């Protein structure tokens, strides 16, 4: 008869091990839940050249992580009948966006009746700038001969489409496409999105 491993109960060791398992469980469980909710916007999302869209977020079909993330920030999602918001947290090279650097946003957007580009500072607030420029939109932007555009994001004045910012730690760029045929994940993969190139940094 094969000998089974013996689990003779030694009270002190048992309590210590049980305690260890509970600490491990609570720590890992809460820690991973916190991290997952902090990054809840990334679950069930589509990334197109660094721009991230989550068409299901903020709807009854949302996954539990993005539902938790939305509940914490209190934000509301654009409805599919309105349009689609795409958020960039990183430049085209993959570096986090920061107000300490200049950026050039260049290229074209997917088809939409109207689009707006705005910038969020730390804490998901609209960038407050003294010049009253809160964003660009498809009807006021200066375009190149081929219809593409080029926006320079900088703390100091630039010619052309200049988006003035403050030198905050984090930046997020938000491109909203209104009345667009692009509202579901499967139609998004091949889209042409503007690139975000980093320029000089402070």
């Amino acid at each position, binding site marked *: 008869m094969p000998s089974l491993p013996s689990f003779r109960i030694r009270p002190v060791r048992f309590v210590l091990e049980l305690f260890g398992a*509970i600490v491990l469980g609570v720590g*890992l*469980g809460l820690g991973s839940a916190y991290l997952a909710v902090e990054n809840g916007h990334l679950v069930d999302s589509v990334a197109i050249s660094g721009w991230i869209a989550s068409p299901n977020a903020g709807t009854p079909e949302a996954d539990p992580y993005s539902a*938790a993330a*939305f*509940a914490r920030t209190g934000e*509301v999602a654009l409805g599919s009948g309105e349009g689609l918001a795409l958020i960039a947290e990183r430049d085209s090279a993959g570096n986090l966006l920061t107000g300490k650097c200049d950026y050039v946003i260049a290229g074209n957007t997917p088809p939409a009746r109207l689009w707006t580009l705005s910038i969020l500072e730390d804490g998901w*607030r609209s960038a407050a700038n003294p010049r009253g420029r809160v964003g660009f939109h498809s*009807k006021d932007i200066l375009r190149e001969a081929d219809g593409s555009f080029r926006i320079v994001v900088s703390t100091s004045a630039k010619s052309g489409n200049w988006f003035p910012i403050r030198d905050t730690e984090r930046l997020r760029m938000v491109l909203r496409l*209104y009345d667009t045929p692009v509202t579901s994940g499967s139609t998004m993969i091949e889209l042409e999105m503007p690139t975000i190139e980093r320029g000089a940094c402070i």
Partner: protein
Amino acid sequence: MIRALLFAVGGVMLAGIIHIVSVLQVPAFAPQDTWSRIADIAPLDRFLRIRADTDDDAVHIPMLDPMMEHAVCRYSLEAGAVRMRATLPDTYWSVALYNRRGENIFSINDRAVATKDLDMLVLTPDQLAIIRENPPEELQDILIIETDDMQGFALLHVFNGDTTLTPEIHAGLDAARCEIRPF
């Protein structure tokens, strides 16, 4: 060794349970969810104009487009159907309905609305059945939205690309109606 491994496996399983339970509980316990923010500022059954970027935390709904003008109406269908009406300038506008949990349940933009103005009736299937028994003539020109969510809020967005339209947009939003007596 096996014994330590068993405790480790137990710990990881406990971690999994705690992870799932706490993620699912966040919406129920988040103090700053959209409904609580809106309940603080918006009275029932009236559109209130709000700004996308404001320094006052209490009236701040994150992720509103700063290039649009917005109005919010908090509604409850307990007392009856809610009719929303607005006359807005000829620019992009849209309206979206959210349930109590802040989830988007309906949205439409100006081009998709058959009429020039917004005229929308939000009600439960039961309330619609009662109205259909004796339908008023104007019912066919009204956008009818059925929902099982008894409470929610509506957000109106109007594109303001050119500041010359600001007075007209503000007037339109201030006059926008969101009221229980529909007919």
